């Protein structure tokens, strides 16, 4: 089993782990963290493929994704804070009424 296969398997496992975490946990903050885990899994696969193909654009894309992920979490956490201030709980089920 060479490095590439190993790294791709790792990335898949990270993604799956994140997905399972999002599904099973009932805490919004933890779910956000698992979400990040999924994203990191995807980014890892991106890095591996970039290395494999020797495409520099991929490396740039990785940084772009990092920035986007940071921005996303920077918005998600304040939204969560506001939610918790009104709802006083981190259980996402309590906010099902937001479906619109």
């Amino acid at each position, binding site marked *: 089993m060479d490095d590439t296969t190993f790294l791709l398997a790792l990335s898949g496992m990270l993604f799956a782990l994140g997905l399972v975490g999002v*599904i099973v946990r*009932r805490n919004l903050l933890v*779910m956000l963290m698992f979400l990040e885990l999924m994203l990191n899994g995807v980014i890892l696969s991106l890095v591996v493929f970039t290395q494999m193909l020797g495409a520099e654009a991929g490396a740039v894309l990785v940084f772009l994704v990092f920035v986007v992920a940071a921005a996303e979490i920077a918005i998600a956490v304040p939204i969560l804070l506001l939610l918790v201030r009104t709802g006083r709980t981190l259980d*996402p*089920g309590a906010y*099902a009424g*937001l*479906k619109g």
Partner: protein
Amino acid sequence: MNGLLTLLVLLPLAGFLVNGLLGRRLGPVFVNVVGVGLPLAAFGVAVWAWRILEAGGGEPLIETVFTWALVGEHVFEVSFYLDRLSAVMALIVTGVGALIHIYSIGYMKGDESYARYFAYLNLFLFFMLLLVLGRSLLVLFVGWEGVGLASYLLIGFWFQDVDKARAGRKAFITNRVGDAGFLLGMFLIFTAVGTLEMDQINEAFAGGLIPVGIATAAGILLFIGATGKSAQIPLHVWLPDAMAGPTPVSALIHAATMVTAGVYLVARMSGVYLEAPAASTLIAVIGLLTAFLAATIALVQTDIKKVLAYSTISQLGFMFLALGVGAYAVAVFHLFTHAFFKAALFLGAGSVIHALNGEQDIRRMGGLSRRIPWTSGTFLVATAAIAGLPPLAGFFSKDEILWFALASGQGGAFWLWLLGSVTAFLTALYMFRLYWLVFLGRSRMAPEVAEHVHESPWPMTSVLVVLAVFSVIAGWFALPQYLAPLLPAPDLRFDWPILHWALIVFAVLVAVAGLVAAGVLYGNGGRRAEAIERRFARLYRVLAGKYYVDEIYERLLQRPWLWISDRVFLRLGDRILLDGSLHGLAALARRGAEVLARVQTGSLHWYAWMTLLGLVAVLIWMWRYV
């Protein structure tokens, strides 16, 4: 001169536009100047055009205004055509039209829609001139529909009254039936000849290259159009109801000009009818039946305008009888004389109604001759003229019609003459009955009405006098001879002058008999007439019920159509099929959305599960197929 005919046609249109747009704001004096001045100017132009025509020896004037459409190699032009026939018609239309406009100043005075009235009347003149002067059947048809529109607008002029509005609608719809025939006839002629210019159509048919079957079919179809416009059986029902309009309108549109459009059409297309003896016979029979039946109905009507309306139908029947036996010029002659005396009669009736403050029932009139002498005198002249007393106008034209009904080589027959003579007798009878009941005998008016009886103002009486004079002299113009180069008289079956003279004497006797009969029946306070009425009560009811044609139409046509419209078109077609399918689609979308909306629960975990499910599905699909 170039552009003369165009000017003639456009003058009344200008009157319509100016009065229609500005008349209300600028007051009645302005409306009078425009609404009456322009028709008078049009009459002047018509006379001028006629003199140019005569200076050219009767050679038709053709004036192309513009090309309407180019379809393949066919050219459709709007062009005007003035020969002796259309010149006579244009002179009648503008001359009688202008007189009636003058009369209307007095009659419509103080009406709140004064400007609208004159605008409509001018619009009518415009379309009528288009009809008369159009060279192509297409232009004629535009005018034909236009006068129908003007007629509809004027019948329902006082549209606040539901009955009057309904009468206008009835006229319009009944005419549509005839127009369908007209259109089909036009299409047929176009496929057969390849042009719609009427002079060329006549030439083509005269050339004998068109099969008789097509000529017959086209002739009958065009005649169906004529029965609608000219109120012949079976489409005559609209004309009596059309009396709901103002009386000058009845005089102009429903007596003197528009209803004669059918006569003009058949005379204009005489080339077709000369090739179609069967169609001509049909015209003669329908015309004569209409003349006879309408005369019998007129005998018992009690509304002064209704009597005149049935009289008009009857006289139009006479004209169609003449057309049917090939005496086209004679039909136009009767049209010409009829225009004057019937306009005089209607306007006289209008003057009576005006004097009695709106009363139209002749049972509540009587003894008016001394109170309104001008109206009475002119009415008497016109009555004598329509009854056929010599030497007044109606005598000459009606006598010619009866002579050709007997002697024409194109379908003249003894029974046509006989029934025609009976109708002539009835004409004299019902007209003098009317005169007697309205103007002679003792007054049967309500006292408060009798107090206010007054002679009409001069714009009305002067017009009555002019028309009465023409009712006397119109028969002295030898119109059939004048039109002979265009519409030659038919060959005679026998040319015995003695017989002709005998018929003339007989016709006079018939008219006098009608006069005497009316005197005997209605002279003595109408007691003898009442006795006859009681004796033949059943016949009287049938006549007073106008042969129940309206009722029959309602049973046979109106109700089944209403039923079909309601059940088939409205309930099945509209509500079930159309609405049903559209509402069904909408309901389907809504139900589907309801089901799908359940997926959106608001639970993040549920969404994550769905994502997982989707991912797995995609992966499986990729593993299987990519």
